């Protein structure tokens, strides 16, 4: 590797880490958290006995899964201003990503809730529990066991998908790499560093996933 490239990498390690810590990770965490909340409500709506609500949830999931994430981002950031709704890049990205996660995770949560035997709902009912309490104390803790592996997939995809935010002016990790490489066209070096950063985050998350799974398995016969 020639010294100029080495120097370029060296000079950009910290700015890229900074972009990761101040943009990529917060963007991921916020979008995932909001996305899960959306997903829970969409899943419950989908399972509701009110047909209109159920169909609304279906439609939402269909639209989110049936359109590219990049298009969703562009709609929030570039198209909404046409209707005088102007949103800054970072919040625009959070909105688009949470809505996206909401659609995918809703199906995961719905399936996980359905995997819990009906007897659990009935047992909760006979001890006088209402729907929200049953959900919170009995159903969701058990459904978590089923949902953690697929939700981890969603999270790990999201980490990498945040790079799409570079297209709507969020100076996240990939955008910083792009800007740093542009003057000398030394893309290989800096995109390589960016790739390693993403990979390290994902390895860390996989580790957390494994720990969480072990924890959630503690009450299951082996």
């Amino acid at each position, binding site marked *: 590797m020639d010294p100029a490239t080495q120097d370029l990498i060296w000079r950009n390690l910290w700015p890229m880490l900074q972009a990761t810590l101040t943009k990529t990770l917060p963007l991921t965490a916020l979008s995932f958290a909001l996305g899960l909340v959306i997903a829970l409500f969409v899943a419950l709506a989908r399972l509701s006995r009110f047909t209109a609500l159920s169909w609304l949830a279906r439609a939402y999931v269909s639209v989110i899964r049936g359109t590219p994430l990049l298009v969703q981002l562009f709609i929030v950031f570039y198209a909404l201003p046409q209707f005088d709704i102007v949103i800054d890049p970072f919040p625009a990205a959070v909105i688009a990503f949470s809505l996206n996660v909401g659609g995918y995770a809703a199906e995961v949560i719905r399936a996980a809730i359905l995997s819990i035997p009906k007897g*659990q709902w009935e047992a909760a009912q006979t*001890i006088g529990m209402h729907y929200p309490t049953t959900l919170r104390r009995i159903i969701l803790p*058990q459904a978590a066991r089923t949902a953690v592996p697929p939700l981890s997939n969603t999270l790990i995809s999201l980490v990498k998908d945040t790079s799409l935010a570079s297209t709507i002016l969020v100076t996240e990790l990939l955008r910083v790499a792009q800007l740093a490489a542009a003057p000398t066209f030394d893309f290989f070096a800096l995109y390589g560093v960016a790739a390693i950063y993403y990979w390290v985050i994902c390895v860390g998350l996989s580790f957390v996933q494994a720990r969480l799974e072990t924890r959630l398995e503690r009450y299951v016969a082996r």
Partner: protein
Amino acid sequence: MTELLTVRNVRKSFGDNLVLRDISFDVAAGTVTTVIGPSGSGKTTVLRALNALDQADAGVITIGDVSVDFAASPDRPTLARFRAQSGMVFQSHNLFPHKTVIDNVLEGPVVVQRRPRAEARADAERLLAQVGLAEKAEQYPYQLSGGQQQRVGIARALALRPKLMLFDEPTSALDPELVGDVLKVIKDLAAEGWTMVVVTHEIRFAQQVSDQVLFIEGGLVVESGPPAQVLVAPQQARTRSFLQRILDPI
């Protein structure tokens, strides 16, 4: 004797399937009623109607001072008050697998009834001791045998201090050698004066423990009375043939 439970003209169908045609009976306070009948007769649905797990389409059920007319589509608070009158023990125990034995028992008193945790815990420990599981308090349900799980289910229902205990075939899912322990717990409760309705296939148990036996078939109470009558000298031909099949299956 004062009636704790009265059931009047209860009807229930699932879709086109009329499961309970017209069910009426009384249960006196401090007595045990066993419900027998062929599979598909509606006996489990009767029990589930008593807890509104399956809401009757019509009929009036009164437990203690709570009376519900199911034809008048009762509101949620009424149903909640009605359900709180009885404790249910399921055929397949339905314990909460992610909670320890003691937490299974505590869930109702602490979360639903909002009793102080320390007091509820003392109560729960006493109940677990009563069903012979004091030393299993901190284990998870999967670590217990089927019979032990069922006894935790009984303790969980008792912890809410219901007026009436309901058992839905409590021993049907158990290995034969585990049945005795569960039946013994139920007998002990009977001796303590609990009012209970038990759906069962254990005719010998029914004979020993019941004050009243109901034979249900086709969604109707075909015959009812003391065990010495219904189980030993049944008046109805259908009761006789059912007992013959169950007591002498080969």
